[in-house]
């Protein structure tokens, strides 16, 4: 411990050996991953690939701005928003009853010690349903529904409704259980029904949080309804897919810009609403 004696700090990095060791270990771990993903970035620089890419990127400008195309873009943008809104509405229809069923705070039998066997099993089943609904990605639901109801927004709305129903239901139940349960339990102990206890005690204390989570999910639904268009559920995504397949760079660039603007707008709107609701 001669640090106090030494007149000047070490000129070399004291942790140099450790840094080199961790860096080389990381490279050794990343190597098999690169092999598995066929990661060969130099492929991007091969002459024919570079030419295709350059041609595609060059065709981004000028943006396509014929009236006809812009009208179509406007229509599809609205459809994207409408798909997200309708999907989240249906998800609420699914999520609200299920989350009420799943909430442990609203159990009458749990007021005095343990919950009864029947309600406990029911709550567990509802929770499992919500988790299964949530864990299947909306894109997979959409692929399945496109097969059943055909191409178009119905498949997208149903996909959003199921996945988001699961997400909202699970998070609603968690939010309702997170706070102080005293008021709710007092009401129920004094003979109020469970729905009354929910409306007059549980809901008022969590309303802001529930509403702001719903708005946040609506914002996410707008983003994912664009993605759903890629499997044929209509909206901006489907147009983007079509334009990309035809290598029409101008259309792709316009659609991407519109999409970025839409996401930014939804982001602002959701931030503002959440601030107002809080």
């Amino acid at each position: 411990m001669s640090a106090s004696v030494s007149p000047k700090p070490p000129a070399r990095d004291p942790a140099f050996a450790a840094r080199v060791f961790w860096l080389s270990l990381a490279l050794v771990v990343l190597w098999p991953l690169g092999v598995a993903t066929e990661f060969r970035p130099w492929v991007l620089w091969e002459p024919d690939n570079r030419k295709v890419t350059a041609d595609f990127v060059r065709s981004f400008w000028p943006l396509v701005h014929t009236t006809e195309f812009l009208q179509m873009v406007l229509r599809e943008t609205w459809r994207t928003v409408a798909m997200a809104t309708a999907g989240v509405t249906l998800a609420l229809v699914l999520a609200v009853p299920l989350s009420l069923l799943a909430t442990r705070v609203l159990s009458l039998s749990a007021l005095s010690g343990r919950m009864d066997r029947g309600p406990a099993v029911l709550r567990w089943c509802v929770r499992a349903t919500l988790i299964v609904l949530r864990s299947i990605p909306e894109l997979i639901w959409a692929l399945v529904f496109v097969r059943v109801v055909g191409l178009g927004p119905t498949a997208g709305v149903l996909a959003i409704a199921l996945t988001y129903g699961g997400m909202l239901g699970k998070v609603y139940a968690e939010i309702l259980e997170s706070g102080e349960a005293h008021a709710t339990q007092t009401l129920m102990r004094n003979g109020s029904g469970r729905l009354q206890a929910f409306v007059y005690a549980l809901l008022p204390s969590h309303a802001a949080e529930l509403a702001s989570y719903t708005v946040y999910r609506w914002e996410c639904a707008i983003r994912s309804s664009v993605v759903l268009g890629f499997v044929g559920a209509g909206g901006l995504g489907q147009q983007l897919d079509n334009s990309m397949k035809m290598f029409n760079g101008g259309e792709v660039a316009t659609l991407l810009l519109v999409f970025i603007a839409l996401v930014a707008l939804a982001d602002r709107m959701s931030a503002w609403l959440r601030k107002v609701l809080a």
Partner: protein
Amino acid sequence: MTSFAREAANPPYKLPPPIFGARCRACWFTAALLVLVVASFVSLNLDWAAFASVEAARSMGRFVAEFFPPDVSPVFVNKVAWAAWETLAMSALGTAMAAVLGLALAVPASRLSTQDPAWLRSPTRWLLNALRAIPELVWAALLLISAGLGPMAGTLALALHTSGVLGRLFAEAMENVPTGPGDALRTQGVGPLRVFAYATLPQVLPQLMSYTLYRWENNIRAAAVLGVVGAGGLGQLLSFHMGLFHMNKTATILAAMLLMVACVDALSFAARRGLTR
């Protein structure tokens, strides 16, 4: 309601409350919400008949019945296992690249000291927002043109989208760090690069790691479906067999996907519980 004065000639409780006051923000908000919802349902003209009819129920039943029995021949299970490994590798490599790229972009995107002019801050933040606004799947579809079909396009797509997300989170973490250690070095005349390496980075590193791990968890889920546009992993296998109506094989792939997502969820839940206890 609040507009009534307490000293009003009529006691306020005797007046009926206005149902829709011009100053009631909640009323306007509810009305706007209703209009939005109704307009959405009306303009989409959803095809309920095709879905809620007996005919549709029957076709749905037939569709589900075709899934059984799932194909569990060793050859195919091997193929699915390889695709699952590919998905996992895509997500890990994509996240690792995104962490490096995100850190590289977060430095110009943050104001590390009060003297820092940070004139690159807004343009870099715009770039990060653009990277973040375009979903992984759209990036993958775009990258297919230059990288070709296969997992590399998916990996790059994950890397680009995630670097937008991580870059923004990293920049905010670095701006919120206490400036004391950095200022101490700076007054000694140490250059900005070494201030960053020895003062800023060590302080934010744990937070950066936890953001990266969180995004990795998200990316495993994203990588599983990314292949639907042809960018490798389980998704590519799924869209291939679904397109050819190999329903038994599709069932196996779907089961593998669900198993993977469930494992990731369970692991992350256990890790979170272990860390917060």
